[in-house]
């Protein structure tokens, strides 16, 4: 297999990218923050080289306005404000960074311990965290510092750190709790690794982003607290920090004297430093926390298509040359490659393939539900002759659910947790013109009966239902307006086998009664063989075989399909050893010049399959396959414009 993609970046560069500094640099906000912070750091470090003056010695005329010799003027005590600002950066930064570091250390330790051990230790730590969290910060600082009066910078750092940690502890705990449930941590626990090792080797690296974000937000808190305390004269006002500069300006009534620059300069410094910390926090959070997301609303419509629409074959849904995928900073991922597929009215079409082969992306792209960073690059998807990919938002809103609906893969979280199920059944109908209360109620009851849930659950909240019941609710909602097409993305994977069968039976009955077309996505092949009229086998973003379920099961033609069929147990017959398919599918960010299955294929033809791409062509009535073993047809290379999918 040859690729036209750029060679992968060397490991060292990746390491840098993934490190915390990489995290800071990757977002524009973080970059600005880092530049401000470093500038201040070096200004403070090289202060003696930049200014000849001593910041605490009042050697000049008092209250000079900014001008030659004194770029920021002088104080009422005759000190050079510019020199104070430069030297003040040292302690200000030290206090901010040191308090931030200590407080992050405490918060991380507390949060991780609470999450990792849970139980009684967790409960005690939670209690301590909550108590410190609600104790008011500044008054507490003032009172404590009043008792520590005159003890200097170190006690200020400690006091700030000791009041600033609980928020971070809380955030970290909840993140660590979800992490703890992940497979790799379970695996480590099972393999008998020590607690310390699991926490430091397995969990901590995954929390680096959050810890870093937390550090910068506490540093911001520390800088502002120091400014406030110093301004009130608490702490050591003989030391030069931006906070104590504000204190002296106030004490010497700088504003009444008209020396506004004396107040403006250190305050602006603090605000900028604080902004730098906040930007770093913000930037890291945006990148390391997927929840803060980059998703936008309904993806943009494609430009009007050139050429004449190809339709008229009586299909309900007609997908033509669809290219879709994801846009990432590393380049485009082409998860769906030049797919053409027709769905007839009332037809049950199964989409199968290994995970990551583009099944879901295809379904979402074709129904215009692919959310950013997902992108549809080109193609058509015509429902009843109208191209979904070129509708405006309002046209789309109107036909959604009325003409087609979806059952999502993760139905656990598709119901709004804070409103009643009744409202969520109603609003789909209300949005499409059903307004009458009696009709709504009758229809809701009908639907619930249809999927076998008691009516009383209409007035429940989602969390009161089991997973299976939620799934049924979602299916009921999907059928509410009797759409002609329902896309089901692994609708039953999360359910136990008995419930699964029951639901599938119901879906099938409803479909036959109402003549609904169904696109059914799953990697459970035996299920598909049993239910489908036709099946499409996807591999690396392409449909490699398309035929009736019978043909796919009894007479698979593509080597990949053949392998798949032996990898899954048959519906009946003897148990025998199943073999998986060795190797992995190619990365979807690569452009391939040959057959995508080449690497793993035991029947490959060297020199042909790796240089030419087999076209998906009909080799028997109703049986299409893309393989040189069955047809010599070459995909003439519907190559996309080179900026797609290539790591530039």
């Amino acid at each position, binding site marked *: 297999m040859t690729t036209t993609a750029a060679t992968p970046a060397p490991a060292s560069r990746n390491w840098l990218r993934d490190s915390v500094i990489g995290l800071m640099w990757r977002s524009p906000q973080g970059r600005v923050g880092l530049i401000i912070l470093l500038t201040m750091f070096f200004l403070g470090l090289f202060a003696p080289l930049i200014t000849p003056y001593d910041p605490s010695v009042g050697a000049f005329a008092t209250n000079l306005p900014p001008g030659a010799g004194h770029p920021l003027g002088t104080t009422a005590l005759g000190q050079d404000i510019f020199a104070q600002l430069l030297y003040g950066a040292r302690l200000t930064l030290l206090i901010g960074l040191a308090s931030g570091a200590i407080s992050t250390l405490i918060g991380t330790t507390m949060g991780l311990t609470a999450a990792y051990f849970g139980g009684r230790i967790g409960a005690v730590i939670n209690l301590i965290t909550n108590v410190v969290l609600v104790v008011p910060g500044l008054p507490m600082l003032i009172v404590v510092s009043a008792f520590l009066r005159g003890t200097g910078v170190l006690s200020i750092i400690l006091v700030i750190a000791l009041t600033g940690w609980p928020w971070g502890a809380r955030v970290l705990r909840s993140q660590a709790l979800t992490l703890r449930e992940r497979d790799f941590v379970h695996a480590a626990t099972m393999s008998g690794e020590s607690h310390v090792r699991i926490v430091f080797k397995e969990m901590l690296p995954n929390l680096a982003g959050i810890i870093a974000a937390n550090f910068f937000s506490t540093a911001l808190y520390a800088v502002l607290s120091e*400014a406030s305390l110093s301004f009130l004269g608490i702490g050591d006002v003989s030391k030069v920090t931006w906070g104590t500069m504000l204190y002296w300006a106030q004490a010497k009534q700088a504003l009444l004297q008209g020396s506004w620059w004396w107040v403006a300069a250190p305050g602006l410094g603090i605000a900028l*430093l604080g902004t730098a910390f906040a930007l770093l926090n913000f930037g890291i959070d945006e990148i390391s926390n997927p929840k803060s997301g980059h998703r936008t609303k309904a993806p943009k419509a494609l430009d009007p298509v050139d050429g004449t629409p190809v339709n008229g074959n009586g299909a309900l849904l007609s997908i033509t040359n669809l290219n879709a995928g994801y846009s990432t900073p590393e380049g485009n991922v082409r998860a769906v490659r030049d797919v053409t597929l027709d769905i007839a009215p009332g037809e049950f079409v199964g989409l199968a393939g290994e995970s990551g082969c583009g099944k879901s992306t295809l379904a979402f792209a074709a129904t215009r539900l692919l959310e950013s960073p997902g992108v549809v690059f080109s193609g058509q998807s015509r429902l009843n002759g109208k191209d979904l990919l070129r509708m405006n938002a309002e046209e789309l809103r109107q036909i*959604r659910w009325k003409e087609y609906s979806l059952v*999502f893969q993760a139905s656990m979280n598709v*119901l709004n947790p804070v409103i009643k199920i009744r409202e969520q059944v109603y609003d*789909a109908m209300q949005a499409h013109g059903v307004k009458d209360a009696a009709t709504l109620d009758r229809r809701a009851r009908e639907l619930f009966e249809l999927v076998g849930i008691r009516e009383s659950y209409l007035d429940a909240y989602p*969390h009161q239902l089991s997973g299976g019941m939620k799934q049924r609710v979602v299916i009921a909602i999907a059928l509410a307006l009797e759409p002609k097409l329902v896309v089901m993305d692994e609708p039953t994977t999360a359910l136990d086998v008995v419930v699964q069968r029951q639901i599938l039976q119901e879906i099938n009955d409803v479909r036959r009664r109402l003549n609904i077309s169904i696109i059914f996505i799953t990697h459970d092949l035996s299920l598909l063989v049993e239910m489908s009229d036709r099946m499409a086998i996807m591999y690396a973003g392409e449909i490699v075989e398309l035929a009736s379920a019978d043909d796919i099961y009894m007479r698979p033609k593509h080597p990949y399909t053949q392998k798949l069929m032996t990898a899954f147990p048959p519906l009946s017959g003897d148990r025998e050893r199943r073999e998986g398919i060795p190797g992995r599918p190619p990365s979807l960010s690569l452009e391939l010049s040959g057959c995508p299955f080449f690497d793993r294929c035991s029947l490959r033809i060297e020199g042909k399959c790796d240089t030419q791409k087999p076209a998906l062509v009909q080799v028997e009535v109703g049986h299409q396959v893309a393989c040189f073993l069955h047809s010599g047809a070459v995909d003439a290379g519907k190559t996309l414009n080179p900026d797609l999918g290539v790591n530039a």
Partner: protein
Amino acid sequence: MIYILKRLGLLLFTLWIAATFNFILPRLVPGDPVGAMMARYQGQMTPEAAEALKKAYGLDNLGSPLQEYFHYLVNILHGDFGRSVSHFPSPVSEVIGNAAPWTIGLIGVTTILSFLIGSLLGLFSAWRKGTFIADILPPLALFINAMPYFWFAQLLVYFFALKRDWFPLSGNLDAFVGDAWTPKWIASMLQHALLPGLTIVVTAAGGWLITMRNNVMSVLSEDYLAFARAKGLSEGRILNRYVLKNAMLPSLTAFGMALGFVVGGAILVETVFSYPGLGFYLYTAVNALDYPLMQAIFLMIATSVLVANFIVDLLYAVIDPRVRDGKAR
């Protein structure tokens, strides 16, 4: 119900911690606090004041620390915080009683205002992400949030009270303004409240903006939102019932906290404007080593924060069905 009891338990426990902390702290100061204060006032302190102080600290009967502690707890339960040193012979409770309405009025109103303004802008900034105004808001908010707010207050004073005398420099009312709640009194009150109020609204709104924006962004990436879109619901309905209802929840916690902090006042704003609220008195108490007043205000702030938190927890149970059933949070 169990949820409420748990929260109530935490409230009482935390209150007790705060009170105990308040008891221990003065005792940690090298030497005894009364001695320190006597030294500071260098004979200016009247014998009565010294006596009152000793009494306030339970130093007059010199029981065991444990006895002192229980004596202290009983006293604060009766609302008896002793007499203020800096406002001698006024009882601490009277000083607080005079200051509290000003703080609660000024800081309370502005806290609510800044919460509403900031949250609305945050919602806008997340919902319309990608448009120029929506994208310029977060960095602006970060900067505003990072300003020392007393510094912003000073700039306001300089430009609007010193350079042009549009507003008074300090205080809460003009002298000789007459009876309360007359039009003249109200006008004077508003004029004095405007600059400190503006300081709080502007500087706090930045934080609310960021909080709300983050909440909305995280709701926007939830599966139930994709589902709502797939259902073809109108944007208005999605915004109202799906986004706002979920995004509001975390903001509410923070808002409850902020309401609790109202009693503590924006210490530095009150200080810059010499606005005679609790924050200002806390500051003067610290400077005057008026331990009884300091402790009482601190305890009051802690109490109000805790109670506000408790109320938010109850409210949470009303809004979020999961919390009501003890399944989340």
